[in-house]
């Protein structure tokens, strides 16, 4: 039996990787993937806790997160395509018209 803390450390690591990738990378696709990474980190902690406490609530919650993530991916990718068509770049530093 793998102890709970292993899962949580891995989950925290995944989430930290996601945050770091989100902050550091300029490519909008990579940033998008970083968000997915964070979501999966959180999902991992949910299922870990669910297994640990023998409660289904955590697993149900994960399904919700996955559904939302799928919807978000659809919308997000659509936005990325639209941005690319108008700006012809994927670098978020150049997508900065929305400012004072």
């Amino acid at each position, binding site marked *: 039996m793998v102890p709970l803390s292993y899962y949580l450390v891995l989950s925290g690591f995944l989430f930290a990787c996601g945050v770091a990738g*989100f902050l550091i990378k300029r490519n909008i696709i990579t940033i998008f993937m970083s968000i997915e990474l964070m979501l999966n980190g959180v999902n991992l902690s949910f299922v870990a806790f669910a297994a640990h406490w023998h409660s289904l609530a955590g697993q149900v919650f994960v399904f919700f997160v996955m559904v939302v993530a799928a919807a978000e991916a659809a919308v997000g990718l659509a936005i990325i395509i639209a941005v690319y068509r108008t700006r012809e770049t994927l670098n978020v530093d150049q997508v900065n018209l929305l*400012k*004072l």
Partner: protein
Amino acid sequence: MTSNLNLWLIPVLPLAGAAINGFLGKKSSRTAVSTIGLFFSGAAFAWALSVVFRVSSDALPYQEYLAHWIRSGSFSADFALYLDQLSLVMLLVVTGVGFLIHIYSVGYMWDDPSYYRFFTYLNLFMFFMLTLILANNYLVMFIGWEGVGLASYLLIGFWFTKDSAASAGKKAFIVNRIGDFGFLIGLFLIIQHFGSLDFTKVFAQVHPMAAENGGAGLLTAIGILLMVGACGKSAQIPLYVWLPDAMEGPTPVSALIHAATMVTAGVYMVSRSHMIFERAPMALTVVAVIGTLTALFAATIGITQTDIKKVLAYSTVSQLGYMFMACGVGAFSAGIFHLMTHAFFKGLLFLAAGSVIHAVGGEQDMRKMGGLRSYIPVTFGTMFIATLAIAGIPPFAGFWSKDEILWQAYQVSKVYWAIGIITAFITSFYMFRLLYMTFFGDYHGVQVDSHGHGSHGHDGHGEPHESPMVMLVPLMILAVLSIFGGFVGWGNRFEHFLGPVFGGGEVAAEAASSITEKVLMGVSVLVAASGWLLAYVLYCARPELPQKIADGLNGFYTAVLNKYYVDELYAKLFVKPLIDGSTTILWQGVDRKVIDDTVNNAADGARHVSDEVRHMQSGNLRSYAGWIAAGSAVVIAYMIWMGVR
């Protein structure tokens, strides 16, 4: 019980006239405007007359309740009207003289571009004045009181494009405000102690109170405060300064508001409150002293004035002083009697002066008149009658009322009488001076000025000419009243008439010493005649003398000519400190430094902060992400810290 008199119609009729002329007059013809103005003021007069005929004296005082106004706890004030012998006299004087002056104005103001505005204001004035007179409590009276002040302001500043007229209007309003302040405090005291402002309720409570002989008490305080109000409205020392300046208004206004009616409101108010004053000897003394001093003071200024209307203005102040002297010695009915006769002859004097001014094309300086007797005989005749009346020559109206006042004053204190008789002499002198300067001698008018031009005047006015009939008829009617108006006082009938209002006490004491009265009467006639004689000598027989006398009295003459520098004194004492204080402290200090700066600095601060903070909105996606991450980190750190604790 008399049937319903519908008193409310009397003030409301002129209000309707004012409303119609005010809203529709601009587009109407002059004829329509004057018809409406005359109809509604005439209707008020007619209704007042019908009230006189319908009411029986035992039904007075008659009260008419119109509507609730204020109901607050135990205090209440209603729109209600009150009619007794006193308000009846005032009612007839105001509507009657007012109507005559309306008629006169049709002729006098015909060429004025704002003809309709004049009649609107005039009718509005009538409304407020009648409200003042018919009020059954001090609060409704106060509405009228303030309203006539407003109408007076509007009419003094009628030619508001002229700077002097505009500032004269403001001066009148502000000086009156000082008096109103005293009046209001007096009313507050009455509410505080009697819990009501109704005349009947207040006086019923005052009635059993003993006279405050020992010292000053509540009634004395109320009396003096009411007198402060009366000083403002009725132009007594120290608040008389606005009235001479008020002559900037059109002459019918001077006649109606600043001679016959509004300025007597103070006398009316004091007489109305006689119950309070009778129980406050000190307040009565204040009234008498102020009245006596004003009478003498204003009369002396009247001697030196050369503007025909200014002479009459100071004369009005002086005559109002007589009325207050009468009230001050407890002879309220004599005061009201003089108020009535004064309304006749002073109204007439002003209207005649207006006719003179009209005749010589707007000139008001008497030194540029002279010899007008033959040009404008009707005006001369009526003005001569009015002069005889004001000077106190029997049997004209002024003689009876003035003599009554002097006689009553004599019984209280010989000092009042002495000053009164000196004033009577001066009055007679300056009035005949006015008459001689204006109507006798040679015409010094436009011909002299435009010497060598061949024709009269640059304004194309031509010879002095008589006024149209519409102006002369009111003059004649008022002249008749000035001759015969005094006879209502014959055998104390006027006093008996007002007896139910003021109590009959003074009438009984009358008959006792009638020999003294006859002697005093003789003295006043003698004094009036000698004033006439002196004026004749100085201004008709030997016109070079006045200049010599003036030179002889060098310093004093200049002081009187400049109205004792009272205006200058007030300017130094009150106006300038107020303006300076307002400018440096209130405007530059409080308004600009505190209020403006608070607002401006708050706005500036917000702008500076926003200028800095807006850089957060860089448009850079990753910096937003950074802020979110940092924010979440802070929240998580906080929660961990809370959890640990």
